[in-house]
């Protein structure tokens, strides 16, 4: 299948699924039907040519497959397939893709199921592709997806926009963010298929941004992803080792993405109150706009982290804030902040805390302390590239 055809199919898949679920219900079975319709399209379209209206074709074939699957199911077990009508809310006209996203990110589902279901139902990825991206065996992922669908089914979510849209949108954005970071930060093992997750997260966030162009946090999240992903090429060295921000070859950053991300976050920040994604995007933009590390506007970054911290307290944000404090005002006040953070049990055993402490100690000239902290951080991380980076830092200090 060509990339163009695959892209078209992946765009049409959630639209076909949405159209069929809106008309006939049966989210769980329809989800299988659309996958089968996509397989049919992938074999027929290259052979017979693109249909006049590919979307209508895919909807028709999905509906037909749904009928077949339901028929087989109902013939197999004529069980009383009953449920009780949920309380009725007014039907709002909205893009089906958005409703599907809300369904897939339903709060009744644990995050790993939300992610898997979103990638399959809205992203149009196959179970095999998702399994590869998350480095789990295909049957495990298949089971995860089928549990998720079962849960959506039994929760009886009607096919419409949820009434608590704002809080539910936050859940959707969080899932998209997790998909992005999963692809970007690779929490375990080598990273062959994982980069595609970031690309997929950006594609899905673009769809949400197109549907909700005035939502500042959606724009903020898209900007954050673009501004982060712009550095992808420079982030890993030729030896596969992780290159920290200050040592990256900035000529390899993707200027188009930086420009698009900066424009997005600038427009969003000037049009309303800023949320956490916008603030993170603004910080990323300040990094991306600096021609050299020395040009980085650290006081501004420190201030933004301060606002972010007051809005959404989070240990990782606190660590990043500490780094910004060090860069703006020197390591001493930052080390004080980190010692306070180390009192938090969850953070005390996290490699990031020790990596930051090592970095601050190195800045302050405490070679022995820095060496020990780098070694501890290397022991705690599960990521191979990160481990290699930390061990290299430790080895360099040991030679002094």
């Amino acid at each position, binding site marked *: 299948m060509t990339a163009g055809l695959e892209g078209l199919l992946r765009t049409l898949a959630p639209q076909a699924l949405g159209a069929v679920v809106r008309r*006939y219900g049966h989210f769980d079975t329809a989800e299988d039907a659309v996958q089968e319709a996509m397989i049919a399209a992938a074999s027929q379209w290259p052979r017979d040519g693109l249909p006049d209206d590919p979307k209508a074709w895919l909807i028709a074939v999905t509906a037909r497959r749904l*009928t077949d699957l*339901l028929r087989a199911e109902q013939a197999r077990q004529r069980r*009383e*397939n009953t*449920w009780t009508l949920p309380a009725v809310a007014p039907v709002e006209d909205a893009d089906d893709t958005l409703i599907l996203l809300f369904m897939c990110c339903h709060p009744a589902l644990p995050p790993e199921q939300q992610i898997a279901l979103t990638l399959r139902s809205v992203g149009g990825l196959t179970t095999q592709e998702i399994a590869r991206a998350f480095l789990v065996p295909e049957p495990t992922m298949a089971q995860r997806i089928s549990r998720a669908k079962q849960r959506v089914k039994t929760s009886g979510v009607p096919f419409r926009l949820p009434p608590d849209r704002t809080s539910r949108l936050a859940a959707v954005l969080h899932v998209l963010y997790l998909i992005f970071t999963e692809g970007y930060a690779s929490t375990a093992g080598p990273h062959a298929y994982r980069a595609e997750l970031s690309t997929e997260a950006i594609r899905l966030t673009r769809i949400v941004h197109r549907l909700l162009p005035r939502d500042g946090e959606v724009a903020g999240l898209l900007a954050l992803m673009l501004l982060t992903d712009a550095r992808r090429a420079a982030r890993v060295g030729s030896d596969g080792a992780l290159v920290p921000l200050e040592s990256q070859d900035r000529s390899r950053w993707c200027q188009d993405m930086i420009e698009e991300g900066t424009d997005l976050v600038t427009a969003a920040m000037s049009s309303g109150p800023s949320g956490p994604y916008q603030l993170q995007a603004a910080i990323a933009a300040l990094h991306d706009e600096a021609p050299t590390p020395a040009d980085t506007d650290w006081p501004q970054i420190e201030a933004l982290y301060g606002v972010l911290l007051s809005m959404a307290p989070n240990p990782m944000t606190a660590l990043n804030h500490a780094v910004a404090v060090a860069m703006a005002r020197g390591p001493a006040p930052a080390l004080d902040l980190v010692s306070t953070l180390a009192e938090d049990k969850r953070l005390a055993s996290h490699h990031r805390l020790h990596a930051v402490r090592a970095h601050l100690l190195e800045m302050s000239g405490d070679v022995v302390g820095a060496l020990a902290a780098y070694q501890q951080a290397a022991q705690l991380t599960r990521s191979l590239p990160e481990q290699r980076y930390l061990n290299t830092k430790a080895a360099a200090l040991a030679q002094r």
Partner: protein
Amino acid sequence: MKYMILHYASQADFDAMAGKDSAVGPAWQPEEVAAMGEFMNKLMNDLVESGEFVDAVGLAAPVHTRRVGPGNVVTDGPYAETAEVLAGYTIVDCASFDRATEIVARLVDTPAPEYVRARGYADIRPLMSGLEEITA
């Protein structure tokens, strides 16, 4: 006077028409489906031309039925495979019940596999014109 002509079919009939061997008989051939479509089109066109046509509706396969029962309990696909249920209707506005019967009699000639024709039937029901007809 308005009459509703009701057509019936089972899920198995829908399957056979969709090209699958079913509990009621073998799958329809594509030319059989085409011939039936052509025949029905002609019939509807004639009714439009005579000014008797009001409305015609085909329903999706019975498998897609959702039944809302007492206590708002919803049942999906409540029909057995071979249960004959409403499959569509045609509303005509014509001079008399006998004229409506004449129209339906033409359906006997609908091209279809023999096993379908052998069982075929349609009901004609006069429409009430308003609430006063019921309460008067």
